């Protein structure tokens, strides 16, 4: 990928290290690079502990003093990582907003829905007037009646609260919307309502969406492109159709085969032997090598790089496609 392409959100070489309680460093995210265009929907797939949530939190600048974040993060070409706390705060919500996993808990229990959204709305550049209309508009956008504004969080169901969280996230029309497992722990029917709300919200505001999920089905249905994460690294990235039908990395392939699919319900699901690595623990060679069915000699000793496969749109971090130089014939 050429370095000149700029999306709405540009993440380049993102690296997150966390100082643990014992003073040991956990290298949670390594060299994460991706770019999302305006109105585009980008997915981050991975299993628990793969670093996808940490990536999101570092984009929001919410990791706290124990974490060291390296690399570049640009919104519309402006670097945001190095800027000061005040500047980061200014950008939050007006340029980059987030929907957290447990939306049930991300609403203040003693404040009405309407006031919470209005509070968020005032963060934006817009003037004080018309806040009420904006609140009602975003509620409608996510399929909720304006009447919901007068209610308290505990009076709504989990799915409705999650949709409120989405409404709140887009009320300032941010350039980038991050969503962290927005449908985990929700039933399929509620999940469908929430995903529709998310899509409508992004379509209406033109925000670039970064959707984090462990569910191939959800990512596949919503996103245009996606990155697969494993052990803190992106192991493959490309268009959804490519990832689903021509995965380059063995992990992607197995993950796709392990996910049930409506179109082919009779298919035997795959399972990957072994357990995922502990987050942040450094390893020699490829992180997936211990569980990889296709591993060969260099995998244990040389860490592969993320390089294009077939077309520039698809990239994989695997020796199968790019044998290390000394091993090449």
């Amino acid at each position, binding site marked *: 990928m050429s370095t000149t392409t700029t999306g709405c959100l540009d993440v380049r070489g993102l690296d997150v290290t966390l100082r643990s*309680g*014992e003073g040991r460093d956990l290298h949670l995210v390594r060299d994460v690079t991706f770019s999302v265009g305006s109105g585009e929907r980008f997915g981050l797939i991975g299993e628990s502990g793969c670093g996808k*949530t940490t990536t999101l939190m570092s984009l929001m600048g*919410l990791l706290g003093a124990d974490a060291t974040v390296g690399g570049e993060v640009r919104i519309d070409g402006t670097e945001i990582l190095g800027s000061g706390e005040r500047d980061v705060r200014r950008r939050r919500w007006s340029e980059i907003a987030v929907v957290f996993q447990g939306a049930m808990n991300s609403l203040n229990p003693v404040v009405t829905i309407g006031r919470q959204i209005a509070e968020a709305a005032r963060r934006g550049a817009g003037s004080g007037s018309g806040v009420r209309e904006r609140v009602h508009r975003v509620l409608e956008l996510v399929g909720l009646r304006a009447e919901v504004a007068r209610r308290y969080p505990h009076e709504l169901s989990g799915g409705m609260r999650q949709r409120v969280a989405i409404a709140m996230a887009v009320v300032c029309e941010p350039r980038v919307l991050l969503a962290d497992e927005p449908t985990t722990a929700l039933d399929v029917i509620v999940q469908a309502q929430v995903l529709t709300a998310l899509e409508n919200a992004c379509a209406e505001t033109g925000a670039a969406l970064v959707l984090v999920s462990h569910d191939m089905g959800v990512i596949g249905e919503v996103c245009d492109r996606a990155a697969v994460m494993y052990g803190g690294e992106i192991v493959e990235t490309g268009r959804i159709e490519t990832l689903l039908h021509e995965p380059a990395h063995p992990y992607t392939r197995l993950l796709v085969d392990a996910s049930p699919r409506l179109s082919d319900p009779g298919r035997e699901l795959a399972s990957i032997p072994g357990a995922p690595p502990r*987050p942040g623990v450094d390893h020699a060679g490829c992180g997936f090598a211990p569980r990889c069915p296709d591993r060969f000699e260099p995998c244990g000793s040389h860490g592969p790089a993320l390089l294009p496969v077939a077309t520039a749109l698809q990239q994989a971090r695997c020796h199968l496609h790019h044998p290390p130089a000394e091993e090449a014939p």
Partner: protein
Amino acid sequence: MSAAAEVLARGRRRTRRRTRRLPSPGLAFSVALLGVFAVGALAAPALFPDGSGAQVGAPYATPSGAHLLGLDDAGADVVAELLWGARVSLLVGVLAGVMTVILGGVAGLVSGYFGGWFEALLMRVTDFFLVIPVLPVMIVVAALYGTRLVNTIVIIALLSWPGTARVVRSQAKTVRQRLYVRRARAMGASHGRTLVHHVLPQVAPLLGASTALAIGHAIFFEAALRFLGLADRNTTSWGQMIADSFERGAITAEAWWVLLPPGLAIGLVLLSTTVIGRRFEQRTNPRLAVSHLGLRSFRRAAAAKEAS
């Protein structure tokens, strides 16, 4: 699990184990302090064989090399009084505290685990005791039923157990709801087995915490009863020393060496039992933490600190 929690879960778990291994300076200090008082109480007859109240010099003599904390209104050595007093104060504390926890622990465990009418009854009783001001009841009972040391101990225990029962009950109730307890029941395990193998280990740290705190409270209440003249005057205790210094003019005599030691002793012992009790509480599973004084586990505080 919150977003940040996912990131920190593993590191946090390790930190917890570490805090378990290394007692904090506060805890070491508390245990040492209690140890010093306990040893002093036991050694009192050997160090001061004349017993409490023995006159060794002029009233309100200032502290000196011979009498480190000076003499009180009767010319008795304040150090001797303090050590002899520790015997009674600590005895009342330990006996009343243990009695409180036995009564409250059994009631709480049984009602929390089995539920039903017993629990409903216990809840009413504890609700009642929660609003009834304990000290006035103690005063009235002591005034009506007599002031012997045994009475003091029994009164304190009888009026304190509902608090322990309440805390133990809610912990037992939470543990009962735990998946592995339900699984054991589904497997066909008897109530006895489930209680002993699954519930009790989870409640045990709380019983430890309750004991520590109940000991502190008992010492506190004993001092209050003494102050109001509702305890056995034939023995001395820290509470009695405070009462005496009030009634016999230690303040007017500006005898700070008489006034300060008993109050500080009670304060330090209670501080120690609170610190130890809190430590016990932290050993209960953080996700089911219920606690005394309404203080949710301090462990969570530590966890939150890491997360932010």
